[in-house]
């Protein structure tokens, strides 16, 4: 009888819950305690205070949840708290970089900066127009080289290559290319161009070739994955309508995957637009405007930032301000690219009808 009455006892489906106020109260208490400990023992180190506060909070919630809610709920809270902690940790560098770039870059984020090159500029003034146009030219040309090659390779791998030895070889070499150090890509492009046109001081297209070496594997892998995500049923539906394979790929498979492919391309561009070493070697260095991809060195933003910081003139701060403004510009360009990519992706995304 006792077992039955126990089984039927009310409250079998309920368990204790921590009151809603527990979390903010614990959070504040842990922060205060962590800060106090840090002041007492480490001279008010903020990072240490935050770490201590987080650990104290973890322990307090664990103990309280175990007592009130039971071990399963405690495990749930522990896992959520660890995940939130990891997320916050990952955001710290991002926030820090953004903040530094904005606060220090604003000093020279003015009209001159976007309308002047560094030609005949010593000391204050000058701008980065030559580097901005150079970056756009070099990266644009790199994308123009990499996207067709990468996309076609991905189409071969996903649509034609299944199980073929050539496809396996391509996949292997693409993986190897992913790991090529960027300076090697720069040296490769420089050597290649020297073989073709003879000794040179670097020029835009040479930089583009170097960036392509880095960009192609990223485009291939991301596009391949996305093409594989397109359901086979759509290919079959198209074949069953008497549509040849090449039209099925260009008119059904690619449009279905295009929004993701665009995102992948934007990511690949973002990956290479900040490359410094290969451009220093292959595209060279100049203080002047150069809108010709095929001759004479072409300045790029990463090289500009590197040079301003590494070889400042007498008034160091002026050069550092220009470097930070360059960094901020680079971040903004990447953000803008992401935004454009998202808009394009949304424009082409498969329609859900809701």
């Amino acid at each position, binding site marked *: 009888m006792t077992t039955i009455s126990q089984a039927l006892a009310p409250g079998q489906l309920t368990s204790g819950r921590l009151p809603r106020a527990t979390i903010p109260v614990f959070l504040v208490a842990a922060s205060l305690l962590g800060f106090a400990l840090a002041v007492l023992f480490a001279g008010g180190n903020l990072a240490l205070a935050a770490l201590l506060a987080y650990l104290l909070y973890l322990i307090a919630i664990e103990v309280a949840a175990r007592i009130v809610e039971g071990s399963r709920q405690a495990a749930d809270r522990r896992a959520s708290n660890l995940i939130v902690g990891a997320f916050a940790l990952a955001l710290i560098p991002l926030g820090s970089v953004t903040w530094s770039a904005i606060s220090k870059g604003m000093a020279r984020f003015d009209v001159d900066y976007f309308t002047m090159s560094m030609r005949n500029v010593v000391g204050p003034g000058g701008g980065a127009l030559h580097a901005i146009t150079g970056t756009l030219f070099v990266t644009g040309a790199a994308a123009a080289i990499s996207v067709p090659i990468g996309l076609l390779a991905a189409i071969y791998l996903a649509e034609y290559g299944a199980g073929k030895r050539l496809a396996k070889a391509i996949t292997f070499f693409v993986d190897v290319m992913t790991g090529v150090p960027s300076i090697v890509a720069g040296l490769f492009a420089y050597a290649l161009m020297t073989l073709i046109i003879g000794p040179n001081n670097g020029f835009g297209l040479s930089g583009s070739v170097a960036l392509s070496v880095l960009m192609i594997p990223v485009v291939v892998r991301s596009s391949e994955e996305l093409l594989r995500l397109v359901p086979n049923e759509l290919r079959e539906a198209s074949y069953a309508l008497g549509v040849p394979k090449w039209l099925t790929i260009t008119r059904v498979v690619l449009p279905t995957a295009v929004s993701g492919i665009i995102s992948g391309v934007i990511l690949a561009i973002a990956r290479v637009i900040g490359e410094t070493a290969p451009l220093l070697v292959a595209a060279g260095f100049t203080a002047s405007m150069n809108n010709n991809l095929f001759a004479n060195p072409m300045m790029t933003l990463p090289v500009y930032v590197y040079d301003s910081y590494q070889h400042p003139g007498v008034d160091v701060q002026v050069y550092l301000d220009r470097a930070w403004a360059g960094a901020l510009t680079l971040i903004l360009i990447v953000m803008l690219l992401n935004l454009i990519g998202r808009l394009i992706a949304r424009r082409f995304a498969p*329609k859900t009808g809701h």
Partner: protein
Amino acid sequence: MSKRIEITDLNVYYGSFRAVEDVTMTIAPKSVTAFIGPSGCGKSTFLRTLNRMHEVIPGARVEGEVLLDGENLYGPGVDPVRVRRQVGMVFQRPNPFPTMSIKENVLAGINLNNRRMPSSAKDELAEHALRGANLWEEVKNRMNLPGSGLSGGQQQRLCIARAIAMEPEVLLMDEPCSALDPISTLAIEDLMNELKEKYTIVIVTHNMQQAARVSDVTAFFNIAGTGAPGRLIESGPTDKIFSAPDVKATEDYISGRFG
């Protein structure tokens, strides 16, 4: 508009595995032929060989003859793309193209093949195909909305409309109702009855009542065991197969004793 299919000694292989063995049968024009049988007995595989869709599966190959009004689908120089333009197919799960509107889905066969056609003719064809698939009244006011916004049954009828917009000689249906509710199933069964006025229809189904309701001829497939090839056990007029089959296994399957 409608053609006879004669199959002689057809064997289908996946690599070295023989999936279907020695099928010989004739499918009459302007009729509904149903393939029934337990899972894995090769009826879907066999259906796919009737418009060479099995070639999409790596390693699949066919021995034997499939004659479409006397023309061998597996003869030398036959282009599978041309075969599929004459023999349309509807799949188990509705698969409208997600990037296309309802109208574009119906006209997919025209548009994807870059066939030129004045837009008034396209509108007419779309309406004709949708009326043929009993979907026109439901979608005529939202032709430019995405096809994926329709219900499952409507999507399947959209796929049928897409197939009949190509004006095929034969329509193959691979379990077209297995993902649908009874009302949508009824709509598609009614549709089959109308479509057989113009087309040769072959349907694979797991639903015995459906085979009995819609088909004129029923073919029963079976396998001897796991790993053995599927065989055509018996085919004949549906009434006969369901009331007095010649083979014991058919009767057992139909009466639900196995499978």
